[in-house]
């Protein structure tokens, strides 16, 4: 009859062998090429397409809104743009929107209740969306 000590040692040996075998099989399985059918996780893009508004053929006689979202120095870009355009289109009128209506100095102009009436006077809007 086997001693309990030898029996325990035998069982431990068997368990270790099984464990090593299991690890080896798992490693082989992971390393073995197989076919995977995967669900593409990114989802389709929700897109609506809007057409551009018609351009303004001649800026003379037109009112051009300069829209600044508030990022530092964007106002300087717009002021210089107006200066240079005024040289080519002396009859154009330029409105620095943030000066006539400080509430327009925001990223979120479109969320304002009177958004449509704010932009209505303009034939063209030049915006600064720089960082």
């Amino acid at each position: 009859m086997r001693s309990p000590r030898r029996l325990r040692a035998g069982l431990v040996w068997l368990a270790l062998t099984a464990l090593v075998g299991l690890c080896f099989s798992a490693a082989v399985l992971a390393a073995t090429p197989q076919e995977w059918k995967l669900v593409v996780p990114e989802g389709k893009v929700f897109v609506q397409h809007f057409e551009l508004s018609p351009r303004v053929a001649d800026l003379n006689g037109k009112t051009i809104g300069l829209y600044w979202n508030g990022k530092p120095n964007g106002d300087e870009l717009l002021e210089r743009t107006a200066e240079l355009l005024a040289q080519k289109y002396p009859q154009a009128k330029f409105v620095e929107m943030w000066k006539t209506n400080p509430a327009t100095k925001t990223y979120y102009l479109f969320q304002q209740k009177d958004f449509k009436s704010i932009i209505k006077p303009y034939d063209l809007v030049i915006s600064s969306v720089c960082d």
Partner: protein
Amino acid sequence: MRSTVEIEKAGIPTVALTTTEFVSLAKAAAQANGMGDLPFVVVPHPVGGLKEAEVRAKIDPVIDEIIYAATQYKGQKASADQSAEYYPAPRITVTGTVEDVNELLYRNGWTDGLPIIPPTEERVQYLLTGTDRSPSDIIGIVPPRMGVATVETVAAVAAMAGCEPAYMPVIIAALEAMLDPAHNWQALTTTTNPTAPLVVVNGPIVKQLGIGYGQGCLAGGPGLKANVAIGRAINLIGDIIGGSKPPDPDKSTHGQTANVIAMVFGENEDANPWQQPLSVDRGFARDANTVSVFPAEIPTNINDHESESAADFLKIVANTMAVMGNNNAYIWDTDVMLILSPEHAAMIAKDGWTKDDVRRYLYEFARIPYYVGERKYKTWYNVEGRIPRWAVPPSADSLMPIINNWKDIQIVVAGGSGKHSIYVSSFAAKSRMVTKEIRLPANWNDLVKTLKP
């Protein structure tokens, strides 16, 4: 960018000035809002932080482009909507090892670089057992890519992140919170600010799912699988479905690691000495399961082993909160968050202070001298919704608060033993913490039993 798009949609032609570093983000934003043809004129980056003459000189070389965009640009003829079917998600078949699958997904921009569990049909089906919602249900449109998040695609991402089916209700509720317009996910996910989601879970679900709320609840490790797996799923949804990956269109200057695994933790409601958890502050019943998603900047430690009273401790907290470099310091219309350790919370409550007492005190004493932030205050002056009436006209020594309203200091008790609390400032720009109730499926009790202790 969105405002320029909406002006164009209203029938007024526009020309948008942007910089070399931000033109791809601007174009993506225009595309996502249906105006992929919007004309841009690009000047060299940067514009901010330069002298006036340097900025103005950037316009001269591009003035003819501005004129062309204003007078002649035509764009391309708009095409029809091609995105009629959002479910089922496409399938791909791959032959290879687990490593090959990981590499394929990584190369397609569908992982964050850490290993994932392949989102096989079987695995995704298994995750779907965690919700009663149909896999075809649309949870929302995830910015900035405007990817359609169906329950199925969310389950696929959750599977990749190593989630269990029982985590699905938390992930869906967190996603609903982030999609709430009050959270302003579009801006959070494209800004140069190193923002990341911070998600507080309240209610019995915290213990049912094993969401860490005690020692090391913002770390990973044994017993914290739910925190990190849910956190990773939330960020992968933004990265994969929302397409927000650096360097474009995620423009975060540095980013932060919580933008890989979002900060997810439960409130330690047992250790809340006021017995008034965040969910109750937000108007929910004491036993409601909720998620609150906060638009976090990088959190700041509050180390205080020395204070023996609420007044002493809160002076240190107020000092920690008064930081001019945080967005909320000058864009006041937002929340900030204080995560109190149980020991600090107990010390405050022992002195008889309520949560509102703490809020009022911090509002009064977490202040910044006007002269420190003068340039910022002036830049943002008179911007609608930002400048409080009390702030005009300040003197150089005026002490400026860091938010508009004392009620917007959100207080949570979390963590284990130790005398460290955390202050979390806010991205702030039209961005708020949003709380949503977690809806449990009918098989909830069975689901919870599948979780390993």
